[in-house]
């Protein structure tokens, strides 16, 4: 366990180093430290916060993913399954259609609000007398996501033409213009989420054989579910508000980690967070250097990097 943590931490640090060294402009560390204002701006104001933000988002999405998968006992659960992505995208699409995309900073706030509202709605829909039924939860999330998709399409049809490209790019995920403020804000969310999830990790682990089994072992199922879902959804909402919808990380990083290390939730949680962070940092770096003087959506590269690795692991694990 300690070995795995150390290995992933090293990989993450290497990824961060690579992400800071790679870019469309050739910059040297020596120049930056020596006082060259441009080099310093590029390295410390543009690349470094962006790399750190990618790490935080990757960690948030992977941690949320592994929590959902464990609590719902569903390997196909991802951080967006409870309507978070649909709600955030809906908020972003509606505010874009209203022309709010031209006001800096407004769309992420509305997106976050949409994410939280959607999660709350899903919970209300899935309530039963004694506990939150995971199946109803999943179904409500599915249905609401479908509704949000419809609203998003309508909003995009009505949005001003000039704002559309940026809105679509947001839905594909983008870390453009990441600031230290974004990093600080998300760091708070991720830190709190990780602490809370680690606190209930032992109880979450008991869900491995089902909610009823956990209950019989003395776990307060209702409370653990509520905390786990709420924390995961909030941290996902924050990540999505900052960077748009980056798929794949939350769904498949936990599986990747599980294929390699096969441990229970208490270990999988920090390992998934580290793995997700490293993957997204590398994917973002790739999206910046793939084409000579433009950027590609980061969500494409999380899949390009992760899928072959995942498939090879899958084949070997037979």
């Amino acid at each position: 366990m300690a070995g795995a943590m150390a290995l992933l931490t090293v990989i993450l640090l290497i990824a961060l180093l690579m992400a800071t060294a790679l870019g469309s402009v050739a910059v040297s560390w020596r120049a930056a430290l020596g006082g060259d204002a441009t080099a310093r701006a590029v390295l410390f104001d543009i690349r470094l916060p962006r790399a750190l933000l990618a790490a935080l988002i990757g960690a948030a999405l992977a941690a949320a993913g592994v929590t959902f998968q464990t609590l719902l006992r569903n390997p196909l659960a991802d951080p967006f399954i409870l309507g978070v992505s649909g709600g955030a995208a809906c908020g972003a699409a509606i505010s874009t259609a209203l022309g709010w995309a031209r006001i800096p900073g407004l769309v992420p706030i509305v997106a976050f609000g949409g994410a939280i509202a959607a999660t709350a709605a899903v919970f209300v829909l899935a309530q039963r007398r004694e506990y939150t039924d995971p199946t109803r939860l999943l179904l409500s999330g599915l249905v609401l996501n479908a509704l949000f998709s419809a609203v998003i399409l309508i909003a995009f049809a009505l949005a001003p033409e000039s704002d559309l490209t940026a809105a679509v790019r947001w839905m594909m995920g983008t870390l453009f213009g990441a600031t230290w403020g974004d990093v600080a804000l998300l760091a708070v969310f991720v830190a709190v989420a990780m602490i809370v999830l680690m606190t209930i990790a032992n109880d979450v682990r008991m869900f491995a054989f089902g909610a009823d089994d956990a209950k019989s072992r003395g776990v307060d199922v209702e409370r653990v579910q509520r905390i786990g879902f709420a924390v995961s959804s909030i941290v996902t909402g924050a990540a999505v508000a900052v960077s748009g919808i980056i798929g794949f990380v939350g769904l498949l990083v936990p599986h990747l980690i599980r294929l390699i290390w096969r441990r229970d939730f208490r270990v999988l949680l920090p390992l998934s967070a580290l793995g997700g962070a490293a993957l997204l940092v590398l994917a973002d770096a790739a999206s910046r250097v793939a084409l000579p003087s433009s950027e590609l959506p980061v969500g494409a590269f999380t899949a390009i990097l992760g899928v072959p690795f995942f498939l090879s692991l899958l084949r070997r694990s037979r």
Partner: protein
Amino acid sequence: MNGIWKFIVHRSSFIVVFALACAKAPQPPPVVQRVVSLAPNVTEIIAAAGCRGKIVGTDDFSDYPEAVKALPKVGGVEPDVEKIAALRPDLVVASASNMHPNLQRALAAVHLPLLVLQTDRVAAIAPAIERVGRALRCPSAGFAVSTMTSTLERERRTRARAPRVLFVVWTDPLYVAGRETFAGDLITLTGARNAAEAKGWPQYPLEAFAAHPPDLLLYPDRSVRSRAVDLLLHRARAKATAVAVDEDIFTRPGPRVTEAAAELNRILDLWERSH
């Protein structure tokens, strides 16, 4: 008996389908009196050719010349075909760059002929005006073309210290006009250098913007707010002269390209004088 009839019906249905598939697109009448324009720059092109009086309807966004504002509107990217048909035009004219792929079929279904103009570059405007002139038999198409071409040539410049210009269409993420676009052509025509190397409308990397900021940053005055531009410059710790330009003439490839070139030259001359 049964088999024979089956055979005949089978074969003739093939022939009918084949014939329908080979049906030609509707052709305009020899003299076009009523025309519907589906793009603002197409409206300006038709008006410049001298046929403004023949326009009976336009898209939602056409607003120049002033008189077309009063005309019936038929919609945006997906125009209302029923409204177009209700205006009984002889010809519908659209722009290739923002045309719905199903438009031709939709109009053919109501027997309306469609003329598609290529207008994505500066060099494409004159041929478009000529095409419209031929199709609509417009009196002053040739005159409009020669005036526009000569005015445009007068605005062509070479500058000793060509400033690097970036035409920004969105700030977050940063989207710019690259080479081989209308705005890119304007920049080259007036003797400046386009800071964006890629073709089309690429997303420009923030660090390239920070490390090599352009001398001049142009942005369309309706779609982009000056506040967003200020924020971008602050983010990149870059200093660049940001100038808002009239969106209508800088993003509509049409006869007013001469005004855009003149305005751009004015901006560039001002920049040269102060550097």
